[in-house]
């Protein structure tokens, strides 16, 4: 390469190749993505888009750089299958024998008790091959079994999500911030995990008040400490013990804090999709105020 134009051409070629591969092609593939149907409940569309206040909250999240310490991407190592027995059918002896021959589980199955406590999993964390073999055996014995898809991985075991994050989760957001560092926990499903608005607000005001020893900085500038007027503000934070403000004072969230909390609560991506399948639990787990461990 002795001449300038040659260097220019080389650079042009190299850059165009990477631009074509990592800018143009993803845009062609994903740029016009629209809502997709829930792969289990076919009538539901996903994602539904965030409420207005949560959209404003996204701007607060962006302005204060929350993404430098919190990711929004759940990783998944793989998918395992649970075989769940739903109906025993007419011949419970046959079913118990079939299960015993298949050598699943530790205990022995016997005719009368095999039908107790249905639906119940008879095989957990199996590969698709083993699970389908067992399902066929059970079918021949006259029972009905369901295969449940269970995504696995440490992120999912930590309760950060039920499945991996996919492109579909983000199509309604103005700014997508998947993050690059996990100083603190992942937030892709914080709304499903910690749906209590007051918990979120208290946590923003003073993280240590709800998560002991939390190294997260307090965001007190999103709140206002003021004298209680004729009657206390309905928005005032419910703070306990040592974290409560002095008598006669109350801590009231500013609009930014309310928006940010609304955004955090809106963060949930646990809908089963074609590209990220899972079997949702039969009844949604009761919402708790308990902090993540």
């Amino acid at each position, binding site marked *: *390469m*002795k*001449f*300038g134009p040659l*260097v*220019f051409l*080389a*650079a042009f070629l190299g*850059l165009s*190749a990477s*631009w074509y*591969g*990592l*800018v143009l092609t*993803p*845009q062609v*593939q*994903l*740029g016009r*993505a629209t809502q997709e149907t829930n792969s289990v409940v076919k009538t539901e569309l996903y994602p539904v888009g965030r409420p207005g206040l949560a959209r404003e909250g996204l701007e607060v999240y962006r*302005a*204060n*750089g*929350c*993404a*430098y*310490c919190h990711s929004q991407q*759940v*990783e998944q*190592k793989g998918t395992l299958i649970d075989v769940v027995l739903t109906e025993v059918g007419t011949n419970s002896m046959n079913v118990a024998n079939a299960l015993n021959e298949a050598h699943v589980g530790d205990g022995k199955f016997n005719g009368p008790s095999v039908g107790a406590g249905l639906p119940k999993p008879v095989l957990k964390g199996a590969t698709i091959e083993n699970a389908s073999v067992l399902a066929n055996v059970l079918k021949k014995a006259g029972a009905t079994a369901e295969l449940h898809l269970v995504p696995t991985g*440490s992120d999912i075991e*930590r309760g950060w999500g039920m499945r*991996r*994050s*996919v*492109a579909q989760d*983000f*199509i309604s957001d103005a*700014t*997508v*911030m*998947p*993050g*690059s*560092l*996990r*100083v603190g*926990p992942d937030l892709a499903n914080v709304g499903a995990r910690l749906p209590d608005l007051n918990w979120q607000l208290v946590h923003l005001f003073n993280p240590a008040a709800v*998560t*002991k*020893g*939390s*190294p997260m*900085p*307090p*965001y*007190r*500038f999103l709140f206002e400490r003021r004298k209680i007027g004729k009657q206390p503000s309905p928005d005032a934070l419910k703070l306990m013990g040592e974290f409560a403000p002095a008598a006669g004072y109350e801590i009231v969230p500013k609009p930014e804090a309310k928006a940010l909390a609304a955004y955090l609560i809106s963060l949930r991506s646990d809908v089963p999709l074609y590209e990220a399948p899972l079997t949702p639990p039969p009844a949604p787990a009761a919402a708790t105020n308990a902090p*993540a*461990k």
Partner: protein
Amino acid sequence: MNATSTTSSASDSISIAEIDASCRVPLFTLFVSAAAWLVMASVFGLLASLKFHSPSFLSDCACLTYGRVHPVAVNALLYGFAVQAGLGVSLWIIARLGETRVVQPWLIAAGSKLWNLGLTVGVIGILAGDSTGFENLEIPRYGVVFLFLGYLVIAFPTLVTFHNRKERALGPSQWFLLAALFWFPWIYFTANYLLLSHTPVRGVTQPIVAWWYSGNLNLVWLGLVGLAVIFYFIQQLMNRPLYSRQLALLTFWTIILFASWSGIPQSAPVPAWIPSISTVATILTIVTVLSVMMNVCKTCGRGCSQTENPTPGKFIAFGSMAFAIAWLMNVLSAVPGVSSVTNLTWFGVAQWQLNVFGFFGMAMFGAIYHIVPQVTGMEWPCAKSVRRHYWLAALGIILIALPLAIGGLVQGFRWANVNVSNVDVAKSALMFLGVSTLGEVLILVGNLMLLGNLIGLSVRYYKIHFVPVYKDATAELKPAEVKP
């Protein structure tokens, strides 16, 4: 052909001193602003680092929260220091190798002012909460416009200077610098246009574009300019040509073909082919590392240890080693088994710091310490502090990169262990962050020495060259000189 022959006959009259003199104004503007931003970057980096020791430190002021201070430090380092120092050193190497004067030096200085204006506006914007939310691209739209124009105003005269060269055949350093000169505006315009225009791309295409840009800036642009500087100075210091042009060509092609595809993490919530292809490309950059190492080692040969290496050479040597380690870390963290541990941990931060400061920054320091005395014809006001800066910077970056890399591994393993609570994982990195804060302090002190030396030199230069002229011009006329 006629034009070439006429210019080559004129080339005899251009001495090295003349070339250096033509560089003086733009280089001073670029280097002093680069050093000032470098100090800014380390002050904000130190602030950000201190926040891990006490979460409530300066947390009551919105503009001093970690989420604003940290991007300011990153942007000041990348755009304030790295790009400006890189452009300055490129300009000098292009003029020297081309044996030609810099075209429109004042225009380049003005471009630097425009660039600094854009960056200042952008940094204030980030502190005020206007960050765009995309890493390495946080500067809001109103700052980007100035930055982009500033770059064009600097790059165009540089390109004309390149075109005016007397020696037509190009060496490896020149391929790298020319490609880098084109590369930056392309990626910068593409990324900012796609992310910040009125109709930006949607969904995860946004982070894909941002990752693509970051990979191209941190690996390709910094790699091209940093290696050009290393190759140039190794030839100068060893007083012999580069061991192999073919190897340098291999380095060049692997950077522009492979490094430009890297940067998309495997955990990214995008279709699997994108991180897969990016992983393969990143692993292939090992060829870049090997070709550079072989070229550098073979060029230095055995003579390296026998001669006393001047301080600028020490910076260059450290830079080449940091290049190899940082790029190997990048390759390693793309390998599937390793990436599941290192991804989203401090390991990536360690790699980034080592690449930007350890490799690129050190190469630039070496170049600046070599170039400035040449273009001014003056020695550094404090020669001792050049050596001290080397030790502070070297120790500082080791104290940042090493603990963070180990801390990242610890953190990665602990995130993967479900029995360790979130708070405990977050706290496990604190000890390593504590050591890195010490590194930040050392680097800050070293950076202050660079800035002090540059300012001291400017003041002395001003005293020698301008004060007498000014005195002459303003001196009262003696009666004898006044003609009736």
